[in-house]
């Protein structure tokens, strides 16, 4: 075996220009693939984060059916015992009770339909990241009373500025006309026009008083360490919750987003196949050439008693060595490129505006994330590709007849 390895290394080195070219092809294709997949995952993560961390949260606990009709009366009592039980769950790092109501927000002549989300500011910041999306003013605080955070589109349509007082009008839970003034303390912009044009955050207890639902909430939003574990978490939580409550993961809140992720997995495979098919043809070519050149040499080796299966192993070993080498360099280079894109990235905001699709917002920037599958999948497939491409040349070499092969010029 050592002999075969030595032979293989020598063979690779014999025509080092050709080996180097093949190596380069493999390194370039695998490293660019890793980079492309990293950027792709980055976009997907941006989208998922925008969809979940700007509004829904990763997981939402609410009364059965509330998420379908958002009925004002489908409330739950977010007692501290329930909140604590949810916070103690492994992998849960944010728990925020919310009350939701719809109504009319008015400033002077103009009024707009609006969705008011009553939150506890400290808790909400563990679940959503609107505090990072402020374009003016400050986030809510526990004692900001009738303070409100408005989406940018909403604020613009109402011509409202920080400190301005607006009228909110809705129907309270007792049927009466709920109305009160709110003071704009901050304006956020997420890029998702749906929320930017119609969402406002207010203090939970203020909203509870306004709509006369003391101590009540509509949902408890959770933030998870790993958003992709949400479906399993939801299932686990169902067992802990009282029967009238349900836990819904973001995939069920936004089925389109699930589709996007499934599509991503398929497109990842398609990109790999296309890129590697081209690379594979290159490798195939290299090894056929190298085997044809060495027909006489193989004949002599066989005449000296080397078994055909060892000839086959020899060629495959050459391919494997070349593959492992380019894999190491390729993955290394790919990791460096991904790291660069993660740390620096490319800002496209001068060319395109945010696009909202399937409930998530694609930000105008290119950035990459590290995802294990984006590394091991191209690496593993590169090795398989090498062996597959070398298989036919190796077979050909193994089937040579020593006498004829030696006579070959």
């Amino acid at each position, binding site marked *: 075996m050592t002999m075969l390895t030595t032979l293989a290394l020598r063979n690779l080195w014999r025509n080092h220009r050709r080996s180097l070219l093949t190596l380069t092809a493999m390194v370039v294709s695998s490293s660019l693939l890793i980079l492309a997949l990293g950027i792709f995952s980055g976009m997907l993560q941006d989208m998922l984060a925008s969809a979940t961390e700007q509004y829904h949260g990763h997981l939402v606990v609410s009364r059965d059916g509330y998420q379908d009709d958002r009925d004002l*009366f489908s409330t739950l009592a977010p007692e501290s015992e329930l909140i604590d039980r949810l916070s103690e769950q492994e992998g849960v790092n944010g728990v925020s009770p919310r009350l939701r109501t719809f109504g*009319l927000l*008015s400033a002077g*002549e*103009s*009024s*707009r*339909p609006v969705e008011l989300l009553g939150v506890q500011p400290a808790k909400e910041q563990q679940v959503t990241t609107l505090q990072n999306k402020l374009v003016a003013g400050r986030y809510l605080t526990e004692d900001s009373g009738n303070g409100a955070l408005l989406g940018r589109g909403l604020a613009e349509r109402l011509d409202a500025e920080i400190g301005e007082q607006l*009228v909110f*009008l809705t*129907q309270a*839970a*007792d*049927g*009466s*006309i709920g*109305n*009160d*003034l709110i003071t704009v303390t901050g304006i956020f912009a997420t890029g998702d026009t749906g929320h930017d044009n119609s969402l406002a955050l207010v203090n939970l207890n203020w909203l509870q008083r306004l709509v006369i639902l003391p101590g009540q909430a509509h949902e408890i939003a959770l933030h998870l360490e790993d958003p992709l574990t949400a479906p399993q978490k939801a299932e686990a939580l169902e067992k802990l919750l009282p029967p009238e409550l349900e836990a819904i993961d973001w995939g069920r809140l936004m089925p389109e987003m699930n589709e996007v992720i499934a599509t991503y997995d398929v497109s990842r495979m398609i990109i790999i196949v296309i890129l590697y098919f081209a690379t594979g043809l290159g490798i195939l070519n290299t090894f056929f050439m190298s085997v044809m050149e060495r027909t006489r040499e193989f004949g002599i080796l066989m005449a000296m008693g080397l078994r055909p299966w060892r000839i086959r192993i020899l060629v495959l070993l050459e391919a494997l060595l070349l593959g492992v080498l380019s894999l190491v360099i390729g993955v290394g280079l790919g990791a460096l490129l991904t790291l660069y894109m993660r740390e620096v990235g490319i800002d496209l905001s001068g060319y395109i505006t945010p696009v909202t699709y399937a409930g998530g917002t694609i930000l105008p920037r290119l950035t990459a994330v590290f995802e294990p599958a984006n590394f091991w999948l191209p690496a593993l497939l590169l090795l398989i590709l090498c062996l597959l491409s070398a298989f036919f040349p190796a077979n050909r070499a193994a089937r040579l007849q020593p006498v004829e092969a030696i006579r070959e010029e």
Partner: protein
Amino acid sequence: MQLRSLSTIALGLILLSASSAFALDLRELIREIEDQHTGRSSRAVMNMQVETSHWERSLVMNAVSLGRDHFLIRIQEPPKEKGVATLKVEQEVWNYLPKVDRVIKVPPSMMGGSWMGSHITNNDLVKAAKIDQDYDFALLGETDTTWRINCTPKPEAAVVWGRIVYLVEKARRVPLTVDYFDEDGIKVRTITFDEVKEIDGRQVPMLMAVQPLEKPQESTVMHYRELEFGVPVEESFFSLRNLRQR
């Protein structure tokens, strides 16, 4: 010969007058019905009882109207909502909220929303006055005592309903029921009228019950406690400034 031609003419005249008496002007009838509570001008005190599966409430309101384009309604009871008022001028609706001392104009996107928490929408307030202009009318059926009138929207009219059917009592020319159908032809709401009273020579139903059919346990009942017509009121009364008077 002369006698015969004379009798023919006489018969012709009789037939003509008979048919003209029968040529019921449906548009005029519907207009009368829709204006029954307002007339040229009116002042009313009414009770509105709203029942839903979650709450019920009872309001006492004062209303003043001029023609079909102007009215002002103000809540008197319960104390918590006293002073909340609605002003309608032509196609626009404003609400006054005494608690925050602000006037809010109802935007087009909210015209389909509930008015004062009832089963009456803001659209009902502005569109009802235009039914005789927005719809075409046909007699759907007739009994000895009633007419059944079908209203289909004119192609160019911006309306909410796909079809409206009025059941009108012939003798007093008052509505008994009005059925509202959506664009798919499904009956979604019925308004029933009752307690017809003669006021200033007009027959007016004092009770009006709105029944949304998809929520059979819910209803809004309007009961006129006082109603007078021909009150002296100017157009200038229906101003935003007046809306703000508590």
